[in-house]
């Protein structure tokens, strides 16, 4: 079953990738969707099996074959379906199915329709390998696979050169992170002699290494990998550029699934991180810095997808704060709710872009509320969920992160609260400017703006419902002991001590007083209210429109230009490398290597001309040579 679950999307990829061009669009689209939906159904059934039956082992394990076997080095091509993998699998395949369905309508005019679905299926397959592999090498396999699919899908409209550049940027930045991950894996193997999760964590748990420094090094190196994939400072700049891909790709890869791979990696390696407070501090502060910085940049972006992209980076930062505080459940909880509402928001923005005939600048939108009622309602729900409207999914998950931050460090809490508050500002700004006010586009008449077809709005409705009730997977304890903390119990379940749970070290709910907790809640809600009222006043009552790029000044200009990080990277890394490339190209390659190679060519040419003189066609010369040769051979043998 596990094998079928993983390989269904691969089958979809192979069929669409080979026969896709001969199939009608409807068949190839629904085929891709069905493959992922099949995986989802199997995942759901396996999850029920795993959690419903207390006699079940801690994981379903399938070994397909021996991946590598060289001397003592042994790696199996094996999968494990445990509670953490199960949660990730459900998100990937569940949201994946909705997005596939949505893509059938969104991409219906595209020539590369079958190719798009082939890539999406391949992506789902790689993502499943990433979360379901039973050892670090399988994770790496999936990790590289999703990186490749991300590249393929960002550059899907390859005829546009700048999209191709965005794809390459994503690929290269991920490579930098992957190097860290790879070194982390080498260090794990060097230290513990195995890649299997269970063996590694058991060895870590019993403390088989004398010095804890190596655990810190492993944790930090793995985190570098997570930085690349989950878009944290300093490797985050690829994610906003990745918006060059079709919108469903942004929703699937760059919001709901692939970027959470870094979070998954850290949660999976909890046993290692638990031993290294330093690494956790690093994770937390980097998450915090990323969260605030991305949120600030988001305030001044005018591309509807760019705002969402920076919002994703910011939310990922929040998740890393939770990981740094040791609140793994809170982080995974936010991964789940974020997957719901960010997929919703991205698909909603896709619906807007579709209805607006590929217009992405919110300054050219406005007043879409009446034209696209379904998109409007669902987008509103998504916005409310991400900004922390009470009792929607984002409220609970964000609150849990804030509470654990408060228990860990008051300063971190304050900064995280600010970051969460800014979320409200940029989300409502975008929301009001897009859907309220008056229509401001001169290219397309207002009458031509249309609501999207049912195939696109249906996933929006499903995701909207999930965004509302998604908090149910881990309700806070003050709502009642019986229904709260489901996710927490899932991750900490140890079968009555029969086996080790996902989290080796029991996770304690932060011990804070009830009054303090209510105070924190009140602060979160009031930040939300302030953001809502301020943006509503500015963009609805005063009907302000974000200024044009030229009119930016002061801090706004810095933010609109994303803190000039891209320019700084250009100056610090790209230009020197290009200059060095020029030098190497001119002197080493053109003069050195080319000269050497040409020298070999002309040298052998010269020698062969010289030697060909010997072959002059006169037999007696040949005979002389032969006699000389025989004489030499004889002489050689005699002496």
């Amino acid at each position, binding site marked *: 079953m596990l094998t079928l679950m993983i390989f269904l999307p691969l089958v979809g990829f192979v069929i669409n990738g080979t026969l896709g061009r001969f199939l009608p669009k409807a068949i190839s689209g629904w085929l891709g969707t069905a493959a992922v939906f099949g995986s989802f159904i199997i995942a759901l059934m396996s999850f029920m099996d795993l959690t419903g039956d207390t006699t079940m082992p801690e994981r379903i394990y399938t070994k397909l074959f021996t991946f590598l076997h060289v001397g003592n080095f042994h790696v199996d091509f094996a999968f494990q379906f445990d509670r953490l993998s199960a949660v990730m699998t459900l998100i990937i395949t569940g949201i994946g199915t909705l997005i596939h369905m949505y893509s059938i309508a969104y991409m219906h005019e595209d020539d590369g329709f079958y190719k798009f679905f082939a890539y999406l299926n391949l992506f789902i397959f790689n993502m499943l390998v990433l979360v379901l592999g039973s050892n670090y090498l399988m994770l790496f396999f999936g990790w590289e696979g999703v990186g490749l699919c991300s590249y393929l899908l960002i550059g899907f409209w390859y005829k546009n050169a700048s999209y191709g550049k965005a794809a390459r940027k994503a690929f290269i930045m991920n490579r930098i992170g992957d190097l860290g991950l790879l070194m982390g894996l080498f260090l794990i193997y060097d230290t513990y002699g195995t890649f299997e999760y269970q063996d590694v964590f058991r060895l870590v748990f019993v403390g088989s290494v004398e010095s804890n420094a190596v655990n810190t090094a492993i944790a930090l190196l793995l985190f570098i990998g997570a930085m690349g994939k989950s878009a944290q400072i300093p490797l985050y700049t690829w994610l906003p550029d990745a918006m060059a891909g079709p919108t469903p790709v942004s929703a699937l890869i760059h919001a709901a699934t692939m970027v959470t791979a870094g979070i998954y990696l850290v949660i999976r390696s909890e046993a290692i991180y638990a031993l290294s407070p330093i690494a956790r501090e690093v994770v937390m502060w980097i998450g915090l810095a990323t969260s605030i910085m991305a949120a600030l940049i988001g305030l001044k972006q005018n591309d509807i997808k760019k705002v969402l992209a920076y919002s994703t980076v910011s939310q990922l930062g929040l998740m890393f704060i939770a990981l740094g505080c040791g609140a793994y459940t809170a982080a995974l909880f936010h991964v789940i709710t974020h997957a719901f509402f960010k997929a919703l928001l991205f698909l909603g923005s896709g619906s807007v872009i579709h209805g607006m005939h590929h217009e992405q600048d919110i300054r050219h939108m406005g007043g879409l509320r009446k034209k696209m009622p379904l998109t409007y309602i669902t987008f509103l729900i998504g916005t409310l969920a991400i900004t922390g409207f009470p009792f929607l999914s984002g409220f609970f998950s964000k609150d849990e992160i804030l509470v654990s931050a408060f228990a860990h460090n008051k300063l971190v809490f304050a900064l995280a609260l600010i970051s969460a508050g800014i979320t409200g500002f940029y989300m409502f700004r975008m929301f009001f400017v897009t859907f309220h006010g008056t229509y401001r586009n001169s290219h397309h008449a207002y009458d031509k703006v249309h609501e999207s077809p049912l195939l696109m709005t249906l996933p929006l409705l499903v995701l909207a419902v999930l965004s509302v009730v998604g908090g149910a997977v881990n309700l806070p304890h003050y709502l009642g002991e019986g229904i709260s903390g489901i996710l927490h119990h899932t991750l900490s379940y140890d079968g009555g001590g029969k086996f080790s749970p996902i989290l080796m070290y029991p996770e304690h709910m932060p011990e804070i007083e009830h009054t303090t907790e209510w105070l924190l809640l009140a602060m979160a809600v009031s930040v939300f209210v302030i953001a809502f009222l301020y943006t509503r006043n500015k963009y609805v009552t005063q009907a302000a429109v974000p200024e044009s790029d030229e009119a930016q000044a002061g801090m706004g200009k810095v933010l609109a230009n994303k803190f000039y990080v891209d320019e700084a990277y250009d100056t610090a890394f790209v230009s020197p490398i290009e200059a060095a490339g020029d030098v190497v190209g001119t002197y080493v390659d053109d003069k050195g290597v080319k000269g050497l190679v040409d020298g070999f060519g002309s040298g052998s040419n010269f020698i062969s001309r010289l030697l060909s003189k010997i072959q002059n066609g*006169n037999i*007696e010369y040949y005979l002389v040579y032969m006699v000389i040769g025989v004489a030499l051979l004889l002489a050689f043998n005699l002496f």
Partner: protein
Amino acid sequence: MSILNIFNQVEISHYIYLSTVLFAIGLFGVLFRRNAIILLMCIELMLNAVNLLFTAFSSYMGDADGQIFVFFIMVVAAAEAAVGLAILVLVYRNTRKTDVSFLDQLKG
């Protein structure tokens, strides 16, 4: 004293000297003469120098193997001479010469 005994009384080294000289004459003839007929004759001379050496050693060692080889060589030499002369006749018909330096079509 039969004639065989006379041969046996000559020392083996004299046979070696003789055949070496014959072989060298043949070799230098091949190398430095241009006339194809003389070339063929010189090759024959070299082969017979070797034959002489074979029989001399055969007699010296009391072993008949060497003489068997001589027969083989004579057969091959006859065939070679036949083929060589046939080629020579054709060359002569085409070029009206028997000078091998004229044949340099295999130039590299």
